[in-house]
C-alpha cells in the first residue's frame, strides 16, 4: 500500500521543519532539499515513509500544476536492458555457487 500524502507532509515537517499544510512547501522540500542531504539521512527518511505505509490519508489539498506540455519521445528513451556481460557473469556466479 502506498504511503499517503499526509505522511509525506508529516515527514517533511519532522525532518525539514516545513509547514505540513503548505503543499507547495512540502513539494519544494522533496524536490530541492532532499537531494542535498547525506545518503544516510535520505535512507532514514525513506525508512520513515515506508514504515508509515497504509497510515494517514491523502489529505493534502489537491493542487494540479498548470497544463504541462506533453513529453516527447526524445525525452523518453526506452528503459535500458542490463548489459549482457553483467547478466552473463551474474548467472555464471549463481551456477558456480549451486555447483
Amino acid at each position: 500500500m502506498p504511503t499517503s500524502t499526509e505522511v509525506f507532509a508529516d515527514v517533511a515537517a519532522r525532518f525539514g521543519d516545513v509547514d505540513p499544510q503548505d503543499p507547495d512547501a512540502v513539494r519544494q522540500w522533496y524536490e530541492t532539499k532532499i537531494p542535498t542531504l547525506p545518503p544516510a539521512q535520505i535512507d532514514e527518511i525513506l525508512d520513515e515513509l515506508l514504515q508509515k505505509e497504509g497510515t494517514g490519508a491523502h489529505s493534502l489539498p489537491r493542487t494540479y500544476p498548470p497544463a504541462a506540455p506533453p513529453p516527447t519521445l526524445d525525452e523518453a528513451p526506452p528503459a535500458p536492458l542490463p548489459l549482457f556481460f553483467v547478466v552473463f557473469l551474474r548467472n555464471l556466479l549463481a551456477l558456480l555457487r549451486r555447483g
Partner: protein
Amino acid sequence: MDLRSWTGVQFVRRAPSKGGEEVELRVSRMTPSQVLWWQSHVQPIIDRDPKRVDAGWNWLLYAPFTLLVGSALARRPVGYSVGIVVPDTGQFIPCALTLLLGRNPAFDDHSRRSTVSWYLTTAPEAALLDIEEYRLSEDRVPKLLGSIALDVAVTHSLNHWGRGRVGLHADLKGGDPLLHWYQRQGMTVLPKDRRLPPGPRRLVRPSDGHYCYFTVKHARAASQRLDYLR
C-alpha cells in the same frame, strides 16, 4: 534453464486494444516532464472517482526520491513510465506509472532479493478518451494496462537479480476485488500468520493478509504470458 534470464527481458512494447489493433507502447525511466504532465492531465480525472485507490495521489511528491536520489539509496528506488508512442507528433504520452524499490528481502524467502512495487497507477479509460494528446478512439483504447504496469516490476526484478520476485501491499481501500486481481495475475497472498522480512515494517505494519508476492515460478509464468507484447 530459461534462456531469457541470460539475455535480460525486454519490456512490453505494445498493448492489445478493444478493436483488435495493437497500440505501440514504450517503457521509459520516469522523468520530471512525464510526472508533471501526469499530475496536470491524468490525476485530476483519477481524483474525480474517490473510490479509486489512487485518488488523491501526488506524484510530484512521490517521484523525487526515485528521480533525484534513487542511486544513492540502498533500496535502489526506480521509477518507470509506460507511455503511448505517437509517432506523428513525436510524443510519449504516459498511460501508467510505477515506483519500485529494487532491492528488498523477498516475502517468501527473506534471504533472497525482491523488487517491491510501492506505487502503481494506470490511466482510467475516461482519461485515455478525453485527453486529446492520446489520440485514441474507443476501439483503440489499450487493454491490459494494469497487467503491463505490474509486468514492469517483474521485468525489472528479472533484469536486476530478483529472478522475478515482486512484493507489494494491496491497498485496503481496494478490498477483496483488488486482492483478487493480484491473485489473478499470479501473485500469492502472504497469510496473516506469516512474518514479513526483518525490518521496521514487520512491527509497524505486520502481515495483514494483504501483502502479495510473485514467486520465481509464478513471475516467470506471468512474464511469459505477456511475451507476445514484447
